[in-house]
């Protein structure tokens, strides 16, 4: 039970970071964000909508993003656009540095030889 939850948390945190990073380019709606992440990673990260929407709503609750229904510039239709807030920007920096530390730490354990060379 506990191990399962921990791994879920890790993924969740990562997803938050990816979303925030995506929004750095400008406001986007849910579908757009999902597609972007998928495309950028060459479909390596298959976007699970089951975690995308809860993550978006959680970010909104924490005040890192705001959401608003707006008409898309290229077509006559309203989408729910998510926008990064100032708080969200700071959070992105924090998460980014945490992720860096983490991946470096993991790398040092996994490939110690590379480090020595």
């Amino acid at each position: 039970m506990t191990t399962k939850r921990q791994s879920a948390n890790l993924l969740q945190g990562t997803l938050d970071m990816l979303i925030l990073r995506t929004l750095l380019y400008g406001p986007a709606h849910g579908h757009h964000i999902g597609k972007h992440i998928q495309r950028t990673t060459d479909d390596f990260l298959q976007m699970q909508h089951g975690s995308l929407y809860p993550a978006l709503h959680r970010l909104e609750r924490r005040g890192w993003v705001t959401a608003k229904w707006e008409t898309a510039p290229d077509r006559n239709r309203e989408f729910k656009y998510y926008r990064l807030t100032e708080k969200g920007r700071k959070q992105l920096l924090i998460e980014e540095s945490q992720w860096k530390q983490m991946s470096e730490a993991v790398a040092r354990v996994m490939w110690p030889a590379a480090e020595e060379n």
Partner: protein
Amino acid sequence: MKWWQLRKRNADLERELQSDLDLEEEEQRASGVHSDDAHYAARRAFGNTTVIREHTHEAWGWAPFERFSSDVRYALRALLKSPGFTITACLTLALGIGANAAIFSLVSAIILRPLPYPSPEQLVGLGQWRNQKGEGYVQTGVSGPNIIDIAAQKNIFQQVAYYRWAGFNITEGNRPESVDSIKVSLDMLPLFGVQPLMGRFFTPEETQPGHDQVAILGHKLWQTRYGADPAILGKTIRLDEKTYTIVGVMPTRFRFTWDQEMGVFVPLALTPEELSEKGRATSRDLETQARLQPGITVQQAQAAMDTLAANLAVEHPDANKGWGFKVEPLHAAYYRHIGQPLLIMSGAVLFVLLIACGNVANLLLARATTRKREIAIRAAIGASRRRIVTQLLTESVVLAVVGGTLGLLLAYIADRILTLQMTHYRRFSVPNASVIDLDWRVLLFSLALTLLTGIIFGLAPALIASRTDINESLRETGANSASESGRQRLRNGLVISEIALALVLLTGAGLLIRTFLGLMQVDLGIDPTNVVTMEIDLPHYKYSVPANQAQFFRQLLQRVQALPGVTSAGIEQSGSRVFFQAQGQPVVIPGQEPTASLNIVSPGDFPAMGIALIAGRQLAASDGNGATPVALISETAAHRYWPNANPIGRHLSILAHVYSGKNEGANLSIEIVGIVKDRRGYDLWEPRSDLYVPFEQHPISYAYLNVRTTVSPLSVVPSIRDAVLAIDDEQPVNDPMLLTEQIARTYGTLRFPMTLVWIFASLALLLSAVGIFGVMSYTVSRRSHELAIRMALGADRLMVLRQILREGLGVTLIGVAIGLAAALSLSRIMSDYVYAIKATDPLTYGAATLVLTLVALAACYIPARRAASVNPMQALRNE
């Protein structure tokens, strides 16, 4: 986000999902998927929207709340779908919870509601008491000099105050009008910590004799008689023969002795004699209340009073030897006599509720079996056990809440009936009787009780129902499984407890009924048929001379006796109690003197009341003022105080009145001329010692007039009024009432609590019968397969019938055995409330057992007969 935005949020989420789903579909189509397939492809790519929705809802943080509300909605739907079950369960719970709420509203009004004064815990009542040999405990007020000594204990008491009932008539206007009035000491009204609405309380000078003609009005009298006159201060009111200046008006909510609304307060000015050392023994009629110093407990005050009593007994042996002081919280003093019966009733209703819980739990168990598949399916698609238990518990709490709401409605009705009953029997004097209501305490109590009830009856069935093995349940077709025998054990356990509880209640109710029947058969010593009684109170200011009082009553009796239809008429004044000394017997030490109730009567009172003479002679007209003082005594007095001698011809002297301490005529030697039968009126439970003395020798200003008639007794009342008015055209006649009615009221005060307990016991009997019926019916229907096989193999119907009955009887007898043990261990509580039997009365216990067993067997008989009428072929084919 707040919970009330949930709906909006939800719509927003739906829109968002739909919009993205549409986009996905467009993209699928753009990438060349056929338009029909694009829809499904989009959905596939999107994933399970229900899961997305659920996870997003979790992210909002209101998921537990949403789960709860969906559980409640689901529970309501499930309950509505099986109305039979729901109605039965709700009514059962409504009875249980309603009875508890009703009795608790009594507890709340009488015991829990604090006295309506500031710092009520500091208020205490004070009394003098002595243990009287043969007569038990005697409690009186406190005498004036003793109060001064008590008040000197400044470290214990802030204030010590006292009062006397006044009984004034307002003698201005057309007709004299009696008014509830008391004379109060300087500190009496300030003691309660209230301020007058207008004006002021009394000053020290005004409590001196001769300066005491000032009055404070009660709020109600000020409103009704004076139209809430704002300029009332300084005006006068005429009470009896004196005029009083009004100096104050009490606030609207002020009640004296908790719930009495007084009309007039005047200063109580003790005479120098009452305050002198002589008064230490003769002014014991002062009702005394005090306010403790902050931080002083009742126990500390009692200890200080014990020391004081011991000192005073040494310093003033004549007045104080044998007397102690008693300190009691004022509130407790008011409910003292009703506390224990309330406890018994609360216990009784709690039992009823527990039995109701048992029944509903059994219903739920049976229901859980039929819902096995539903629960298994829920588990199969991923509901955790905890989730299922929560859902089932929600269902039982919803049931309890519906039942509890209905119960409150029942309790409201019950409260109205209780209020009526309590105020009808004034002698059942219950403080706050007029405000028995569903106050916040009752509502809170009922809410807690309801939730608790829902969990109590719901938990075990929910736990058991959720323990199902999914595979087995989905496959099972009705054959007995291992878990089924566990359930059967729980079901039987519930019925056994119900029967045990019902038996305890039945024995309790049985004891009270036996007691009541016993009291009904008590020889009252009087013949109440065709007797009417009424009160005549001669005002002091008009009849201050004893000779005038005697003259009035003499004339009255002559006139009444001459009325057509009247066989005899007499007057009596009873209710006071005296210490006396039987002459020729050794002088008794103080505290050990014989006591008796003193009845001041006219000779005609014996035939009028039907009190029979046993020995000696009746009182006669010749026993007048100036003749030899004479008395009659009751049998009990004769046995108790002249155990080895014939009292007739012997003498006694009345030492003092117990309550007032007055001792005029202590040297008067009274000859005993006759013995009459015991009579019981106020106290049905025990015979008492009575002394009867003629009114000509002991002047009285008020008396009851008792008239025995050959015609309908009430029909002579108008002519009696005329006779009174013919003597004094201002003299009222109060409260004419049939003696039978008066006796019925006395019994009514006994019957009332007994009826309540009896209602609870019947409810318990009914509910437990329903319980055993339900369980046996269920057993039979579960086992129709087995029974059919038995019958197919040759068992005849009678054997099946017997087998089922035997099983029901087995369960019943275990319950009865446990119930008997419990009832016996609780019998000590009842011992104060039984008459002429022991609290372990075998007859009562036997009868209760028999009734319960028979009812249980009857309840088993219906399912047993159904079992016996099973058609084996059909039952087996149904498999």
